[in-house]
């Protein structure tokens, strides 16, 4: 008798009707968006802090580079000694004092630059000051050596290397980023999905054990049917939740940006300016066009199909292991020792994916790891945007599917024995014995 649809349906309905599941489904995007809003707000708050910096410039040549900007204002002190200036700044409770000491040697304009403050200035601020002064000093030196600065400015060039395959497909650096983005997102999505919903499967099996209903169920259905039903039902619930998250999250983000549009766009002013400038610049406009082109050039169908196959395969592989762990223990605290061997290859996959695929998507390491079944779903998903030969994809999936059949068999063995075992936490040795029962 095939009860798989019945079990799957119950598992699914039970999950999606669960109050905490419903609350999490609708609250999580809200929390995420709220979190983003808070971060945005706080960073704005931080930027709002007014800073006043006094500058004591002994050379008298650098004063014109300190322009008031955003919340930072400058005042130039003249005709005072450092000691007096320090006292003055401290008594006025200004943010700090920048002291530029004049050099005795004629070729070096300054000898020493110090910033006095009781506050802790950010690294960004200090390096900003450094950049300003460096640039001015170089200009001054060049001028002193009789070089026309406007000529240098005119000679500066920006280049972009155009990439093209021998068959004539144009690509660019952007293309690489896009591919990396796609692959990374797919791999990471799978990783998150396994962690969240694998745990859910495990918990639901433990629950079945602790509520002791298992013996009644097992007298009606085969353990493997029950296990598969639980895995499929929970996965469907997971996909439902994930979809709602994505939809709700994007809607909320949209609402957020329209309501708080002004404050957000204010924050984005510098970037937007760049974008606007870029749009006017014909070169960058070309670049954008190429980006669209390279998006269309991605092996999209391959990507979608492979994503489905590897996502499902990878998730089933890991979830069967989670199910086995759930069956082996009595309560969640006992799961720790069995979780490590499951999580490790998963984390390894993500790291291999991030570090080697970026470096060389078809290098030995990434190729090998895209065949090892425990890492292949993540690594292969990351590699596919860069174009992986079909035979490799198929071979990798066949290995994955074969391993999946094996892990389900293995998990079912543990499951069959484990679900009726209560009391003590089993050791690995005992698990091995269970497989032989």
């Amino acid at each position, binding site marked *: *008798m095939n009860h798989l649809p019945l*079990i799957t349906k119950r598992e699914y309905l039970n999950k999606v009707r*669960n109050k905490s599941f419903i609350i999490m489904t609708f609250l999580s995007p809200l929390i995420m968006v709220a979190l983003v809003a808070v971060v945005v707000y706080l960073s704005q708050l931080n930027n709002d802090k007014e800073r006043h910096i006094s500058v004591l410039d002994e050379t008298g040549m650098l004063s014109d580079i300190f322009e008031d900007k955003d919340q930072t204002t400058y005042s130039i002190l003249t005709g005072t000694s450092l000691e007096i200036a320090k006292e003055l700044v401290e008594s006025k409770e200004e943010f700090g004092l920048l002291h530029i000491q004049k050099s005795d040697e004629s070729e070096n304009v300054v000898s020493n630059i110090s910033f006095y403050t009781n506050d802790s200035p950010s690294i960004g601020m200090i390096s900003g000051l450094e950049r300003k002064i460096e640039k001015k000093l170089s200009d001054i030196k060049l001028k002193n050596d009789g070089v026309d600065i406007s000529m240098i400015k005119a000679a500066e060039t920006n280049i972009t290397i155009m990439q093209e395959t021998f068959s004539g497909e144009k690509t660019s650096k952007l293309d690489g980023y896009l591919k990396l983005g796609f692959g990374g997102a797919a791999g990471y999505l799978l990783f998150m999905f396994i962690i969240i919903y694998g745990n859910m499967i495990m918990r639901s099996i433990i629950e079945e054990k602790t509520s*002791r209903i298992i013996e009644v169920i097992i*007298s*009606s259905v*085969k353990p493997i049917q029950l296990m598969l039903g639980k895995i499929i039902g929970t996965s469907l619930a997971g996909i439902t939740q994930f979809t709602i998250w994505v939809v709700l999250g994007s809607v909320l983000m949209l609402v957020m940006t329209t309501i708080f549009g002004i404050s957000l766009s204010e924050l984005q002013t510098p970037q937007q300016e760049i974008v606007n400038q870029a749009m006017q610049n014909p070169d960058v406009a070309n670049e954008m066009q190429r980006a669209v082109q390279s998006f269309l050039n991605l092996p999209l169908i391959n990507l979608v199909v492979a994503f489905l196959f590897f996502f499902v395969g990878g998730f089933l592989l890991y979830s069967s292991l989670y199910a086995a762990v759930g069956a082996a223990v009595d309560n969640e605290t006992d799961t720790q020792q069995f979780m490590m061997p499951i999580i490790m290859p998963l984390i390894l996959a993500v790291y291999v994916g991030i570090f080697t695929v970026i470096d060389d998507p078809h290098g030995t390491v990434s190729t090998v790891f895209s065949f090892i079944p425990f890492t292949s779903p993540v690594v292969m998903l990351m590699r596919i945007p860069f174009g992986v030969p079909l035979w490799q994809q198929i071979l990798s999936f066949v290995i994955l599917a074969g391993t999946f059949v094996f892990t389900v068999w293995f998990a079912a063995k543990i499951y069959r024995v484990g679900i009726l075992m209560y009391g003590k936490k089993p050791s690995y040795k005992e698990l091995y014995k269970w497989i032989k029962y």
Partner: protein
Amino acid sequence: MNNLLVADSVSKHYGSFRALNDVSIAVPKGSIFGLLGPNGAGKTTLIRIVNQITMPDTGRVFLDGENLRPEHIKNIGYLPEERGLYKSMKVGEQALYLAQLKGMTKQDARKRLNYWFDKLDIGDWWNKKIQELSKGQAQKIQFIVTVLHRPKLLIFDEPFSGFDPINANLIKDEILQLREDGATVIFSTHRMESVEELCDHIALIHKSNKVLDGKLTDIKRQHKTNTFEVGLQTDTIDSVTNAIKEKFKVLPATFKNLNDDVKLNIKLDAHDNPNDLLRFLTSKAEVHHFVEVIPSANDIFIQTVKNN
């Protein structure tokens, strides 16, 4: 074929632990069969094998003359000792689900459930969650779920635990009614008074071996010790007592009776005739009480387990 369930030389090992050793039982159709044994004897293992939860290492099991197959689960109703239902699921939904797992259609299951809910007067529980019910109430649901699909073979593991006397009685009557309706019942319990009351056949499993089985009356006959409870009335208690003690093996007796002067258990040898004893007694005193001591299931259980 008079036996509904036959287990033939069933053995089961868990690793090096021997849970069942060459156990054979035959459960006659329409009987209430008591499966007895101390804790850890192997009863649950045997029940799980019958339910096809675990497979025997060797030996075969037949249901109604056929080799036990997965399809047979719809002919078996099993109430495990470890009760459990999905706590957060509603009563009606859960009962429907479990009935469907036993191969019933949804409509049929709903009809049967309405019948049982009316019968036990619990119609208003349909939309309650199990966690809102008391333990005894949940047990009732579990009982209904066990018998709902009208199985030929019912297996009850400690069915009365968790019930108050009134509900225990209710369930007992239902079990007897199910037997009337043609079901065969395997009944595993430690409560010997319910064995006396319900079972007509028993099997006793001890340390993985079957040590005793058969009709309860036959077993009692085998275990009777030829002992008679005797209550006499006389003026000369001492002399009468001594006269009996000279002729027979005598043990102290503690039965309830009205003003008996002498209360004794008298054990006869195998070749002795109770009539001779009675004649002897009537010659000495007035006989008010003369009953053969029939061993209780409890006595048989303890004695058999101790001897093995």
